[in-house]
């Protein structure tokens, strides 16, 4: 093993890590924005309203992320309608295809997390809101959503870690993210173990930072509950 090669190519790997971070940040942000209406629709008592989000979540949680990326990147180009549409300049770019696939995927998972949180709020709090005479919007804005935010945090942290790991799949559609960059370097140097291990260390470092940030935010958000009252659910 020759780890001097890692030092030589480390700036390149960091360049890839920056692309990975952009992918994660954009798709987690957009996914969170889309997840909220999906979760709200999913909790509706009207079957017609909750049916569509159910299918959406079922599809994106039931199929591999790799299939979803390929469907967006390769699949869309099968139709001439898409190629002639104004969206083609976006759908032609692997980076934006990855963003679209990741956003759709993470919004489905996040919607389920949000739904669980909304339903985990004690009924008494909803009743209290109604008794005080809050409108529906006030109830959601002042009570339910802030409460849900606190409940959601641990699971949401896990989802971001999963997205971080999922972002490695961007390398399969020619994006030079951390994994893609590592594979390119290896194709040139043929030192798979050293470079892949170095990439693994960078991923580990990123996930540790994410975990540390979430611990802090959780502490702040849930401090009114006293120590150790919120249990952290595991992956899955």
């Amino acid at each position, binding site marked *: 093993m020759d780890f001097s090669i890692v030092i030589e190519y480390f700036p390149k790997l960091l360049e890839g890590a920056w692309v990975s971070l952009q992918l994660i940040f954009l798709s987690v942000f957009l996914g969170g924005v889309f997840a909220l209406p999906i979760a709200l629709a999913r909790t509706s008592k009207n079957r017609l309203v909750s049916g569509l989000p159910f299918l959406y979540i079922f599809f994106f949680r039931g*199929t*591999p992320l790799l299939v979803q990326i*390929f469907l967006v990147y390769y699949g869309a180009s099968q139709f001439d309608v898409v190629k002639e549409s104004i969206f083609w300049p976006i759908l032609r770019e692997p980076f934006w295809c990855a963003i679209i696939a990741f956003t759709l995927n993470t919004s489905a998972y996040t919607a389920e997390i949000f739904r669980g949180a909304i339903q985990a709020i004690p009924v008494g709090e909803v009743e209290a809101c109604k008794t005080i005479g809050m409108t529906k919007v006030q109830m959601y804005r002042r009570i339910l959503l802030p409460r849900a935010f606190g409940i959601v945090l641990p699971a949401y942290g896990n989802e971001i870690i999963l997205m971080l790991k999922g972002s490695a799949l961007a390398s399969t559609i020619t994006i030079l993210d951390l994994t893609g960059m590592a594979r390119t370097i290896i194709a040139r140097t043929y030192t798979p173990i050293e470079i892949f291990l170095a990439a693994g260390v960078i991923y580990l470092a990123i996930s540790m930072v994410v975990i540390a940030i979430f611990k802090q935010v959780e502490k702040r958000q849930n401090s009114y509950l006293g120590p150790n009252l919120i249990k952290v659910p595991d992956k899955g």
Partner: protein
Amino acid sequence: MVDLHGFGNQLWLGLVVTLELALASLVVGLLLGLLGASAKLSSVKALQWIANIYTTIIRGIPELLTVLIIYFGATAFLMSIASLFGYDEYIEIGAFAAGVTALGLTFGAYATEVFRGALQSIAKGQNEAAIALGMGPYRTFYRIILPQVWRLALPGLGNLFLVLLKDTALVSVVGLDDIMRKANIAVSSTKEPFLFYSAAAFLYLALTVVSMAVVHFLEKHANRGIRR
């Protein structure tokens, strides 16, 4: 059977490979998970350390990277060992073996946490009662502890299996002929990516639904003696 330009059969064959990979990794992962949980709960500090390092590393790096490291790493590793014995030919481990190793390691790391939680929630009295009856440690484990751990761990393990099922698609990247790669091959000769990737997605969905049903059945079976 849907024909799909004659590739329907190929996708079926891919489905079989995907299932084989998932089940083989499941077996490896369950064993690793039990070992990991026992190590984390053991009183030996060194074992705790090893198990903690194992779960932290595997859970922190992408599954795709694990697959790539095992696939390329194992080859280089085996070749360097072989050259010690004077064997300098090219050795390559198969995509299937690499896939089982990588996915088994991943499943095992998450299963370690599931098993640890289950083991910890079994009342101490169960163990003591078994000892009082004169059972040895192995018999206590198989007859008393494991059936109860199984019941408690099943929901978590079921979720992990669904994740594992989807992660099998990653092994197509190193050339295993699973659903995903069969779809890739079909796409490259028919130029109809949307059709074939949708078909692949449908097959994965079907696998997911079947697995959910099986897990539900197992849970019902494991809970048969429990009053709600």
